[in-house]
């Protein structure tokens, strides 16, 4: 994880076509659509993904990550504000909405954004989801940085493009920092219970998932029932056939 963080700290966001997209759950993440021909359309896609990232962060256990989830949320909301400002700028300058064509692609491989190559190591499904959404938002502002990426070139957007990308990178950096905190917390032993506390008040009992105790009772009952039933059955057989 540390290596990933170090890499992210020095490396700019990358577009890599040769890396399979990281995924969570059973479904792979959607591949980004072809670049939109207008700046406003790309801003709209970015806004949608940033909103998804904000929602995912809001569902996370913020207190587990040393306040970094909140920091990421602040950066995402700043990015959303800058997207809104860029949209307003485009309304005032409609000439910049139509994007000029970019350089011809070297191949037509689908682009795959991998801001965090080891995203699956980020603890918590919500952080992973937020990370993916940030990646998808960021890709809308990139201009042909990789050999396989091609499409119309988004402009400066009145200076907001750089601001939005900075916001997204700050949010991503906060996610990684939060992941490190969570990893460190997970490695530490649990705090000792306060003096006089009942054992049942500890974290172990509170961490029981629903259905665990009924399962214990059911499995023990099943075992005992089978044992007693078998003993009864074999005893009755022995009465019939004493061998």
């Amino acid at each position: 994880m540390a290596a990933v963080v170090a890499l992210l700290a020095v490396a700019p966001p990358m577009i890599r076509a040769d890396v399979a997209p990281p995924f969570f759950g059973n479904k792979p993440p959607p591949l980004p659509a072809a670049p939109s021909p207008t700046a406003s359309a790309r801003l709209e896609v970015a806004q949608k993904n940033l909103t998804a990232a904000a929602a995912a962060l809001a569902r996370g256990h913020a207190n587990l990550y040393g306040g970094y989830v909140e920091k990421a949320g602040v950066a995402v909301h700043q990015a959303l504000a800058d997207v809104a400002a860029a949209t307003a700028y485009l309304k005032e300058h409609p000439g910049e909405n139509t994007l000029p064509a970019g350089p011809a692609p070297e191949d037509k491989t689908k682009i795959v954004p991998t801001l965090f190559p080891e995203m699956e190591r980020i603890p918590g499904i919500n952080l992973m989801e937020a990370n993916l959404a940030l990646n998808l938002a960021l890709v809308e502002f990139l201009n042909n940085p990789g050999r396989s990426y091609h499409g119309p070139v988004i402009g400066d957007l009145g200076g907001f493009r750089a601001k939005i990308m900075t916001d997204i990178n700050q949010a991503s950096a906060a996610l990684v920092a939060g992941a490190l905190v969570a990893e460190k917390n997970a490695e530490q032993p649990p705090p000792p219970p306060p003096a006089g506390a009942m054992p049942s008040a500890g974290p172990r009992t509170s961490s029981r998932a629903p259905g665990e105790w009924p399962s214990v009772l059911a499995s023990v009952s099943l075992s005992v029932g089978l044992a007693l039933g078998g003993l009864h059955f074999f005893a009755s057989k022995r009465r019939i056939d004493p061998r």
Partner: protein
Amino acid sequence: MCCLASLVSLAPVLAWRPGFLLLADAQVTVARLDVGQLWRFLVCGYFLSIAIETPVLLVGLSRPHPWRRRLAAGFWLTACTYPVVVVALPILMASAAHWQYLAVAETFAPLTEGALFALAFHTPAVRRADRVQDWLVILLANLASFGLGWWFDTRGWLWIS
């Protein structure tokens, strides 16, 4: 999809495989189990378990026991201990070390099976040497399933997804 297999003794090997435990969050150090997976594992693992243990019992149990009884013992003994080993113990020992779980499960299963077999079939007519042989064979059956299960596991043939 369920796993390829397990046996009474193998269950400890599998119950702690990566991916089998679900960590609730970073601060809770006690692993949270997927109870549904335990039950699914119980069903499919039981059959491979008896597939390994029953032949050992068929061949090894002492002479006074007829073949039908040996066969019945193969199904019955495992059925009696398997739910506890696969479902109850992983939940109750979720915070214990792996070796502790192994020790408890590997002691519980053969002892219980041996005691049940003795209660059911060791009549006064059964000689002491035969009784000892039965106990040893039950222990051997459990060890065989544990060893085979461990081997399967190291080769990646056992999983739960």
